[in-house]
């Protein structure tokens, strides 16, 4: 079947199988920030934003985004012009292996898009779908705290 959606700000058409999950479809399109760490909705490495909401793309059928709007971490910042969340994570030393980060950043962005200054608790609640084994989340928290307080660039 064919679907059409907006992928990172650009119109995208794609032929998919009805059983194809969004993770696979996006990786097929070269969107490599979307990772598979568990394929059962537990690790959060596959999180993307669909119509402004952070979702687990491994649980979602690609067919479900037909007509929708998908954003991934590739879209929100670049090496030359990183998103403030990305800058803060880098400055705080919060990026170790980085495998979980694409998804985690998209969850964080969904929070900040709605509320520019969330509390630690609100952030923890909104990031509870992400497993990171490297950092203990401490530096991620301090980076996001900086974004929340407006201290990040």
């Amino acid at each position: 079947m064919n679907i059409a959606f907006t992928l990172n700000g650009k119109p995208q058409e794609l032929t998919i199988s009805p059983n194809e999950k969004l993770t696979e479809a996006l990786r097929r399109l070269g969107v490599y920030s979307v990772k598979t760490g568990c394929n059962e909705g537990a690790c959060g490495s596959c999180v993307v934003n669909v119509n402004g909401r952070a979702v687990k793309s491994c649980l979602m059928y690609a067919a479900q985004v037909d007509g929708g709007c998908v954003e991934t971490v590739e879209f929100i910042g670049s090496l030359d012009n990183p998103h403030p969340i990305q800058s803060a994570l880098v400055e705080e030393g919060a990026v170790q292996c980085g495998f979980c980060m694409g998804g985690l950043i998209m969850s964080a962005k969904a929070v900040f898009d709605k509320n520019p200054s969330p509390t630690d608790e609100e952030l923890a609640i909104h990031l509870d779908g992400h497993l990171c084994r490297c950092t203990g989340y401490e530096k991620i928290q301090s980076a996001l705290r900086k974004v929340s307080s407006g201290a990040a660039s």
Partner: protein
Amino acid sequence: MKKNFNVVNKSVRKIDSLSLITGKPMFVGDLKPADALVVKMLWSPHAHARIVSLDASAAEKMPGVHAVLHHGNVPRVLHTTAGQGFPEPSPYDSVMFDNKVRHVGDRVAAVAAETAEQAAAALKAIKVVYEELPAVMSIEDAMKPGAPIIHDEPDAHAAIPVPYEPERNLAARVAMDVGDLEAGLKASDVVLDREYYTDYAQHCPIEPHVAMAQIAVDGRIVITTSTQVPFHVRRIVAQVLQIPVRRIRVIKPRIGGGFGAKQEVLLESVVALFALRTGRAVYWKYTREEEFVSSRTRHPEKMRVRVGAGKDGKIRAIGLDCISNSGAYGAHALTVVCNSGSKILPLYRSDIIHFVGESVYTNLPVGGAYRGYGATQSSFAIDCHMDELAEQLGMDSLEFRRINTVRSGETSPVFRALGEGKAGVEQSVGSCELERCMKLGAKEIGWKRRGRWQDKTGRFRRGIGMAALMQGSSIPEIDMGAVSLKINDDGSFNMLMGATDIGTGSDTVLAQIAAETLGCDLDKLIVYSSDTDMTPFDVGAYASSTTYLTGMAVKNTAEKVVKQMKDVAAAMMECSAKDISLSDNKAHGPGGRSVTFSEIALRALYGTDQFQIGAISSAISHKSPSPFSAHFAEVEVDTQTGKVSVLRYVAAVDCGTAINPKLSEGQTEGGVLNGISYALTEEYRFSPKGRMLNSSFLHYKIMTMRDKPEIKTILVPSYEKTGPYGAKSVSEICINGPMPSIANAIYNAVGVRMRSSPFTPERVWRAMKEQGRI
């Protein structure tokens, strides 16, 4: 001793971090060609069985299938999957495919097909007849006389002269005695004899094991793999496939976490053989379930601790007997259990020391290297034991540790006695700020307000516990790291290293050491690591070695380059090289004159007496300086449900000079949270027939941001003279603290000693009930 640094000891940006979080294709899975064949493995459904027959003929003819591998069509080469130095101290008890399976999730046959669906369908068409054998499901069962023999194949053997008795399921044994333990205990005023047990756990890198092999235009095999040990991968794949090392190139791209699991050579030989047989690119990634069952785990250990002390609070004798469960194969069997002794026993001063470490085979998942490497298990036993002993002596356990732990300048017979598969290396403790770690950590957690459990009431009770820790930095006189460095026209440098950054930031830390030595900015270093064709050798990312050991190699190499640059600059400024100093990307000569690194490079490359400014150098170590740490946990126990919540955690760490303080803190915090969930929530649950029941992130629980306590890291500087700019290691030690400090905190809260991990709510509730605490 240089202490005013320009680049070192600064929290510079991790050099790959922005690329990593802007979605660049940097991991193995991102580099896979679209037409790569996909591998699926048929795993053993039985814990212990002989393969009577295996018929893959139908599978081979299935659509999309290009090859099937099984014991009937691959070379039988005994080897170890443990990625260690050569010859490995782990027994040669593995073959690529065997006619016997030794745990649920052992290999039976592999298919390479155009798609994953086709490969999965082909697996179902492989006909296997098993003869089930009695299985061994525990350490105790393994050691019983007449127990089923798991490695009854005649060709299993140890590659080095170490005890190996597979006929009684003994994968490894190591022992040492200084003085007479029994006599020492008899002469003590207080003696405590206890057993402890730590259970299975998995590393849970968020990126599972993944590897890809391609045939290059010249016919060589290029393996791109998520590994901690690219050079060991090359050597072991060559061994298993019986092809020369020169035919193999191993590339390590970015790695999605390792923690020791990827110090194992598991997938690479399979994809390489498939690539050879099909001529195609071949890709294999573990599922999460496979990562739990068919990757590697932390060895469970059963430990008996006997310690005697005098009324003065001083330890007279320490005995530690460890038996590890190596699972179905002996990967790291000897060295992990050996480290249970060697990395902990020197911590507490004693004239009499007894240690036995044994490792036994069972028909359960395979143990391996896991951050902490045996010290994690014994830290739990020893530091819970010391807590209880202090109590029996009527001493504050912090004070007890203060008077008994090792100090700078002291030595321990353990260093000499226990090496890795051979005698150890005599050494004295260099830098050691453990006492200060304990002091600062105790202050931060509020040690004085801990009180006694007997005085605590109410449903929710709080307690504070601690642990004192040590680890090492590299394996002395075994590990080696090497680096090459060359200058470019613009005064930048290519630094090529075998060292393996698996997310830890070693590329950054090593670049900082290079920049410090060269006198340039960090961004002048172009770092490329871990490509066996391009970079010099390194043993890889394990044994807390990279910063310390490869850091020395970087410094050695950079110093050689500095000398060459000074010579060129001296010629340019017509002065003596010894009057030149390098800093700010310039060579400064007498009279305020200077030339830039770029000018030096241009002269060397294009000007007069041209040559390549560059060097290659390496380092080994003659000691393994210990980082030290004091950990403190405050917990709250729900006496009705047994749930233990960690409220606050403090880790005070002496890692020498922290080359990059924020990354050092990150290592500590990551290790601590991993240790906290190891203590409280992570467990392997098995069916009676040895099948893991909770092999997914839905049922094997590691913590999220919502579960974490505040983790406070205090870096306590010291200066390790043998290390680069005073550095020691930091990556492993931090995981050892949570289990003992939480157990001690639980005791302080509710008066039960948890001697068996993990401390799940039901277990804590049962312990409180059985001991009449509720």
